[in-house]
C-alpha cells in the first residue's frame, strides 16, 4: 500500500493558557477532568489514524466531541498542541507560513457547515475566489468557476448573491468553491447539517455522485450516524476528544467496540448497512440455484433469499462461488441481537 495521504500520530489539542506544559507533564496520559480543573479544555485526545488515497473517512460525534477541532488541526486552522500530522509525507506542523499557504492553495479544499460564503460576491465570484487568490487571471478563473457552477448544477444562477439562494444551493456553491482549485484532499465540516432533511438526502446523493467521479481523499465530519453509514468507507466515532472506534460501517454495526458506540448502532436498520459478504458463511454445501453478489446490501436481496428453501450461493465479481447464506441467517441479522428483542 502506498503512503497514506493523511497520517496522524498521537495528536492532541488542548485549549488553555498553559496547555503545552500540562501536556508535557502528563506523559501522554491526558485525563480531561484533571485538565479541566486546571483551566484547560481537552479538544482532541491522542488521535492516531491514517487516510489513504481516494478513501472517505467520516468522523462522527455529538457536539463538543472534538470532531471539528480534529479537522481544524489537520487543516492547521489551529495548531495541534502535541503529536505529528503528515500530509502526503510532509510534516504539517513544521511547514512555514508560505508553504502552508501553498499547500492550501493547491492541495486542500474545505466545505463549512454555515457555508461561509463571501456575502459581497456573486456565486461565480465566490467560486473563483480561491483561484484569484492564487493569482490566476480574472478571465481564466471565471471560466474555470463556470465549469464548477455546471458541475454542481447551478447553471443560470451564477450571478446571484448568496443571500438570494436557498441553503442547499448555498452549500452547492461552497462545494464548488472548495473544488475549484482541484484539491487532492477534501475536508467537509458538517456540510449538510444546516439543511432540511429532504435537501440533505438530495445533497448526500449528489455528493456521492461527485465523489464517484472525482475520487478525492476525504475527511467528512458529521453528527448524524445515518449519514456516516451512508457515505463512509470508514467511520471514526469520537467522544470527549477520544476516538472510540475507527472501522468500516459494517464492523461498527456488527462489533461495536464500546458501550457508547453500541448505543448508536442499536437503532440502525442493519439490512440497510450490511452487505451479504458481512454475514455470509464459508460453507458451500447444499446450495440452491440462486446466486447473489457479495457486494449487495442485504435489503436489496432479502426478499429473494427469503423465498428460498436452500442456502443461497454468494459469488464474487468473477462469478466464483465463495460462500453461502441461508434465509434463517437473514432473519437473524435483521431481527436478532437487539436489546428489546432479547
Amino acid at each position: 500500500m502506498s503512503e497514506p495521504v493523511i497520517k496522524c500520530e498521537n495528536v492532541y489539542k488542548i485549549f488553555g493558557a498553559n496547555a503545552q506544559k500540562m501536556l508535557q507533564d502528563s506523559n501522554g496520559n491526558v485525563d480531561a477532568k484533571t485538565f479541566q480543573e486546571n483551566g484547560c479544555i481537552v479538544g482532541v485526545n491522542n488521535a492516531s489514524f491514517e487516510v489513504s488515497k481516494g478513501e472517505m473517512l467520516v468522523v462522527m460525534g455529538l457536539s463538543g466531541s472534538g470532531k471539528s477541532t480534529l479537522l481544524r488541526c489537520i487543516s492547521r486552522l489551529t495548531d495541534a498542541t502535541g503529536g505529528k500530522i503528515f500530509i502526503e509525507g510532509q510534516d504539517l506542523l513544521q511547514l512555514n507560513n508560505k508553504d502552508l499557504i501553498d499547500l492550501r492553495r493547491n492541495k486542500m479544499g474545505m466545505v463549512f457547515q454555515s457555508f461561509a460564503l463571501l456575502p459581497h460576491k456573486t456565486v461565480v465570484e465566490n467560486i473563483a475566489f480561491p483561484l484569484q487568490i492564487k493569482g490566476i487571471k480574472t478571465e481564466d478563473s471565471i471560466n474555470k468557476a463556470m465549469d464548477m457552477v455546471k458541475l454542481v448544477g447551478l447553471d443560470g444562477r451564477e450571478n446571484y448573491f448568496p443571500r438570494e439562494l436557498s441553503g442547499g444551493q448555498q452549500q452547492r456553491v461552497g462545494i464548488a468553491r472548495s473544488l475549484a482549485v482541484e484539491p487532492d484532499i477534501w475536508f467537509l465540516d458538517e456540510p449538510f447539517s444546516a439543511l432540511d432533511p429532504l435537501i440533505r438526502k438530495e445533497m448526500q446523493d449528489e455528493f456521492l455522485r461527485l465523489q464517484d467521479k472525482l475520487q478525492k481523499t476525504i475527511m467528512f465530519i458529521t453528527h448524524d450516524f445515518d449519514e456516516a453509514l451512508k457515505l463512509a468507507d470508514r467511520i471514526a466515532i469520537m467522544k470527549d476528544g477520544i476516538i472510540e472506534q475507527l472501522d468500516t460501517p459494517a464492523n461498527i454495526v456488527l462489533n461495536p467496540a464500546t458501550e457508547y458506540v453500541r448505543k448508536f448502532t442499536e437503532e440502525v436498520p442493519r439490512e440497510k448497512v450490511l452487505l451479504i459478504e458481512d454475514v455470509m458463511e464459508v460453507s458451500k454445501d447444499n446450495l440452491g440455484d440462486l446466486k447473489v453478489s457479495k457486494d449487495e446490501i442485504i435489503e436489496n436481496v432479502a426478499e429473494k433469499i427469503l423465498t428460498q428453501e436452500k442456502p443461497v450461493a454468494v459469488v464474487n465479481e468473477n462469478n466464483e462461488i465463495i460462500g453461502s447464506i441461508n434465509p434463517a441467517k437473514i432473519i437473524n441479522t435483521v431481527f436478532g441481537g437487539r436489546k428489546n428483542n432479547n
Partner: protein
Amino acid sequence: MEFFKKYPKTFQWLFLLVVFFALCFAIEVPETYKFIRGQAEFVKDPNQSSYVFLGKEVRYYAFDVFWRLPPLLGWLPIWINDSLFFLMNEWMPIEVWNEDTQEFKSRPIVLQISRNLTAFMTFLIELIREILLGGLETIVAFTSWDWIDKNPWAELPGLPWTIVAAGAALLSYKLSGKGLALFAGLTMVYISVFGQWKPSMQTLSFILVAAPLSFIFGLGLGIAAFRSKRVEKALYPILLVMQTMPQYAVLVPALVLFGVGDHAAVIITMVVAIPPMILLTLLGLRAVPPEVIEAGRMSGCTNFQLMFKVLIPTARRDILIGVNQVIMVCFSMAVISAFIGAKGLGFNLLLALNQLNIGLALEAGLCISLIAILLDKMSLAWANKQTDYFGNLTFYQRNKNLLFFGVIFFIGIVLAYMGTYLFKDTFNYLFEIPHNKGISTADFWNKGVDWIFDTFFVYIKAFNTWLIQEVLQPMRALYLRMPAIATIVLVVGAGYLIGGLRSALVVCALTLFIAFSPWWDRALVTAYMATFGVIVSCIIGFTVGTLCFQNKHSANFMLGVCDIFQTFPSFVYLIPVMMLFGITDTSVLIAVIVYATIPATRYTIEGLRSVPAGLHDAATMSGVNKFQRLTKIEFPLAFPHMMLGINQTIVFALFMVIIGAFIGTEDLGQYILKALSDKKGAGIGLTLGICVAFIALIFDNLIRAYVQKRKKHLGID
C-alpha cells in the same frame, strides 16, 4: 416588609434617594455663595483663597468641601497651555533650510511638523478647489510667482457649473442609475441657481480632502486595533472621550497647533471624524463569522489577502456605516470649522446667523444637507458596484461614459463661451452664478418668521415667560442647590446599583474630575439644560416613534425625515427659535429638543422593529389587543435598544446645549466659546471639552451597564 423582600432593588434605590435628600437638606447653602457670572471671573478678590501647584497659582472661592469641592485641578488648563506653548516654541529645535532667505534656521520640531502638514493640506485643498473654481496657487506651487507672471495662460480657469453638474449626474448614473443621477443633477442645479456655487465648491474641496483621509486613517487604525489587543486598549478610552466631546472644544488646541484656515479645518475634521470610523471598522471586523475567516484561510489567503479580500468586504455593512458617519461629521464640521477660518458654506451660514437671516441660513444649510446626502449615496453605490464578467462589450459600450463626459465638457465650454456674449453687461450665468446673485427664497422665509412673530407675539411671550419663570428657573435653582457631595453620592450609588463596583468606580472618577475642575457650577447648569432637553425629547421621540411604527410606510418616512434633520447643520435650528424666543434659555432648549428628538425617534422605531416576528404571532394567538401587545410584548423587548437611543439623545442634547452658547447661556459652552477667542484658550477649551465629554460618559456608562444587564436577562444579544 414583604414588599422589600420582593423588590430588593426598589428598596436600595429608595435608600439611595433618602441619603441624597438627607445630604441636600443637611448641608446648608453657605451665605457667601452666589453663582459667579462669567464676567466676574478674573476680578481679584481678597476673599479668594489660592494655592500654588507646579508653579501655577490657582485662585478660587473656598467653601465647605461638602458644598463645593476646591478646584484641585485648576492648574490643569494652565499647565496644558504652557506645555503646548513649550512644544511649539522651545522643545527639540532642529535646523531647517529656509528657501527664501537661503540659510539654515533653527525651529522646534513640532512647529516644523505642523508647518509641513499645513503646507501639504493646503496644497491638496487648493488643488481640488482650483479644478472646481479656478486659480493659480497650484501652478505656482510647482513653478514660481515669476513664472506665472510671464505665462498667465497657465492659470486654471475652473470648470463651468454646467460641466460639474452634468459630470456629477453622469457619475451617479454610472454608479447607481437614473434615480441618483436625477438627484445629483437637481442638487447641483439648485446650488448653482441659488447662487451658492462658490461657497459650496469651497466646502466640497475641503471635504474631498478630509473625508478620504479620515476614511483611510480610521480604517487603518481600526485594523490595527483588530489585530492587536494592546492597540485597542490604548485607543478605546481616547475614542470614547473623542466621541462625546463637543467638537467646539477641539477647535482651540487645533488653533494653537495649526493656525487659522482651511488646512486647520481639515485636520480638526479628521480628528473628529476618525474615531467613529475606527469604532465601526472594529465592530464590523469583529462580527465576521469565524467560518468565513477559516474559508479564507483554506482558500490560501495570505494575511494581507485575508484582510482586504475577505475580512473588510465581509464587514462592509458596518464599514459603510462608518463612511456615512465620516461624511456626516465632515459636513457638521464644515460649519463649526468656519470659526477657525474655513471658507465656504459654513462661513456664510455663520454670517446669516449673525444677521438673523433665517432665509439665507436655510438655503446654505440645505446646500450642506444635499451635498452630504449626495456624497453618502454615491459612496454607498460605489461600494456596492458589481462587475459584469459575461457582457461582450464593444469599445463604445465600455467607454460610453467617458465619451459622454467628453461631449458634455465640450458643450459646457461652448455654452460658457456663448455666455460671454449673451450676458455682456452682467455676470456670465453659464459659467458661474456669483454668490447672492441667483434666485433666493430668503425673503419668503424671513417674512414667514416675521409674520409668525407679529401674529402670535402675545402667546409666544406668555408661553416664554411662563416656561422660564415656572419651570426653567426653579429647575436650574434646584440643580445649583445640590451640594457636591450629595451629587457624587447619588451618581456613584446609582453606578453601584446598576453596574456593580466597577461602574461605581468609573463613574466616581469621572464625576470627581468635573467636581475638582473650576467649573462645577457651570457643569450643573449644562446638566440642567441637558436633562430638560433629554426628558422632553424622549417623550416626543417615544411617542412619535411608537405612533409611526404602527404603519410600515410612516415608519420608513419618519426614518427618512430623521436622516435629513440629522445632516442639516445644527446651527440653523438656532435662528428661528432665537427670533421667536429671544436670547433666553427657552431658545437653546427648543433647539436642543428639535435636535435631540432625532435619535430618540429613530431608536424607538428601530427597537420596536427588532422584536422578532414570531413573538408577534405568539402574542396575537394569545388574544392580546394592539395596545396590550405594545405594552406587554414590544416595549419590554425593545427597551434595551431604546435605552441606547436615550444614550444618543444625551450626546445630541449636550452637543446642542454647548452650541447654544452662541445664543448666550451660562454653562460650560459659554466658556468654550470664550476660549475660542482667547489666546491662552487652548488648555481651558480642552479641559472644558473633557468635562462635557465626562458628563456624557457618566450617563453612557450607567445606561450601557443597565442595557447589558437587561439584555442578558431577556436573553437577547
